[in-house]
Structure formats: C-alpha cells, structure tokens
C-alpha cells in the first residue's frame, strides 16, 4: 500500500459495519448522536482508516493475543456480502461492481487481509480475470478514440482497478494503431 496513492487513500475511506465493544461517552458523534455517547454494541459504519486499527489494537493489558480485547469488531461490508459473492460466482459479468463500490477490489484485498475467506478470494480472482478479458474486448472496440470509459452497460459497471485496466488496454491499442499509421510518414 502506498501512502500517497489516491486510490489507496479513497479505499481507506470505504465504510465498514462495526460495533464498539465498550461504551465510549465522547464518541457519540460517530453515531450522529454527540450528546448521548456511544453505547457498546451499537451498530455503526466507520471508514477503514479508523475501524481497522480500532479492531486490531488491544484495549486490555495482556501479553497473550488470545485474550486481548479490541475496541471494536468488524463485519463484512455489504459490497462483499454473500449475495454479491454468489451473484459474482453465477456470472461475473452480470454484476455492476461500481454500484457496489468504486473500490471493489481494493476494499476486498483489505478485508481478505482481515478475514480468512478462501472462497471469496477464489471467486473474486475469477471475477477479476473474467471481467478483465471482457474489458479488453470493449477497449478494442472503443478503438482509437479518446472517449474512455463512457460506454453504457458493462463498461459503466467497472470499478477502479477495472477502469485502470480498460485504460491500459485502450492506450496500448491506440498507441499501436498510431504507430502503424505513423510508419507511413
């Protein structure tokens, strides 16, 4: 992960459902309720940059990781719910990933780092490769125009990694065509 990378920073802003394990009087604002204080087990939605370290830091003094208690516990975000993963398993091309989140794969790598989910990992890899091949086909069709990622249907559902792939495929085709035309000069 890169400190200055804008996509990494935006992925870090993805919200994840979580619950605090203790009452925190000063953090009511996280639940839009500054005057009430935050009660343990209240479901809140927090960005990864905040939630991840709260889930990984220990609030108790213990050298044994087994009974270290975190400040909060995380859950899978909706974009990576069972329904979404099942839909991707059925047909990777049929899901508009961008509607789930712009940073679908970026979010997934972060969550897969936190949760052991071999099945989801396999489905996402297949999804990524299958959709990449499809993306390349569209990039070829888009031809030597500069009208990048403005198509409807499949293209409008591309998330950020896929958009980058589309641009790469498109730029490669375009540079090659331009060279071919330039040779004659």
């Amino acid at each position, binding site marked *: 992960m890169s*400190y*200055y990378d804008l996509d990494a920073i935006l992925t870090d802003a993805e919200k994840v459902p979580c619950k605090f394990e203790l009452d925190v009087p000063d953090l009511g604002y996280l639940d839009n309720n500054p005057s009430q204080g935050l009660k343990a087990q209240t479901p809140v939605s927090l960005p990864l940059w905040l939630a991840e*370290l709260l889930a990984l830091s220990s609030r108790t003094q213990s050298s044994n990781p087994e009974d270290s208690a975190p400040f909060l516990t995380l859950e899978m975000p909706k974009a990576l719910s069972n329904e979404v993963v099942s839909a991707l398993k059925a047909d990777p091309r049929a899901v508009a990933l961008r509607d789930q989140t712009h940073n679908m794969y970026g979010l997934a790598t972060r969550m897969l780092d936190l949760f052991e989910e071999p099945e989801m990992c396999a489905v996402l*890899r297949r999804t990524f490769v299958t959709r990449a091949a499809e993306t390349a086909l569209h990039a070829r069709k888009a031809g030597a125009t500069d009208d990048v990622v403005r198509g409807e249907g499949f293209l409008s559902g591309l998330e950020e990694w896929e958009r980058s792939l589309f641009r790469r495929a498109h730029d490669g085709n375009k540079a090659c065509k331009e060279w071919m035309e330039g040779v004659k000069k």
Partner: protein
Amino acid sequence: MDIDDILREVDPSSSGLPSETRDLQSLTRVWVAERSTPELLSWPTDGLVERVNGRIASQIERVEALTGDMDPRSNFALIVIQTELERYKFLVRSYLRARLAKVDRHALHYLSTPDLRARLSPTELAYATRHQALLHNHYLASFLGSFGPTLQNLNDTSGNITMIDTPDLESAVFIRLLRDARVMGKGVDADGDVQGRTGDIIILRWSDAKPLVDTETAELV
C-alpha cells in the same frame, strides 16, 4: 576454452566487438531495463553513461566543425551523423529521465540506506536530496508547519502504513532468457518452475526476475 578466450584474457580490448558497438548494446540494454522495472537499478559503475556522453560531446564538436552554412540537403554524411547523434541523445535522455522519475517517486526510500543511495549517480543523489528538501519545505509552508512538531515529519513508519513509499518489488515484468536456464517464480495457487530456453519471453515477478537479470541470464523486455 578456445583461442579467443585466451586472447581476451591477455588483452581485454581484443574482445570480438568494437567498444563503440558494445557500448551501444549496453546502453540499449540498461535503457530498456530502466524503462521496464518497478525499482531503480544501479547506475552503471563501468563509466558507460559518462563514456557515451563524452563521445556524444566530441561528435557534436565534429558536426560543428563540418557545418558551415551549407544546405543540410547537400551533405549526406552530416545528415547520417546527426541522425545517429539524435538517436544517442534520445537514449541517454530517456534513460536519465526514467531514472529520475523513479527517484522522485520514492526519494525517501532511495535516500534511506547507504546501499540504496549507492544506486544513484552523484548528481542524482544531489538532485534527490534537494528535491526532497524542497517538497518538505513546501508542505511546511502550506500546512505542515502549523502542526505540532511530532507531526511535521515525512518519514514516520509507525502505525499500519509507512510514510516512506517503496517500489512494489513483487509487480510483474517481462524478461527474455539469454541462455537456457531453469526459471522459478512465486505464484498465488502454486509457484512456477520451468526449464526455459534461450530467447523465451517470460512473465514473472520482478523479485524473481532480478537474480536472473543480475547474472545476465535474462534481460528485461
């Protein structure tokens, strides 16, 4: 060992290719490599770039001596010389700028240890140090200066992300085998292990390709 090897050992300059040709081949190879790897490679220690640059300078002098105010159309040799000169200038320019782009992107990383600093030429080192200072001053003047002193650094490595960005050494590259060799590379589901033949083009992670490139078993393409 044959007679050529023996000759080469007694007199290194007797090697099969003229040194000009060899330098072009080396320069081309370091250029392609620098354009193709995620990390900065070592500045050639054999004086390659300085030597080529010196030859370029004397060729420019030659051109100036040959050029009066004559019509360029009339002097074919001059056109040939200048055409080649432009090709060399492009190679060196693109090479230097490919390096500088990497230095800029990960300056703090390359300045962080003596080993990494040793990859830079003296002028690159001076440039990187000064550039980093300019950036830090710019941040300080724009916002960072009003933070508490402990927050003003740019090299904090605590927490879950380090501020010192590093090149991704696991990112993939294309190489060509320069001789038959066994090629091993890390993969997700399984690692790869292939008996490769001279001329094979192979995709693998840079961390796995680097040892092959360092021993001239392979080159970047």
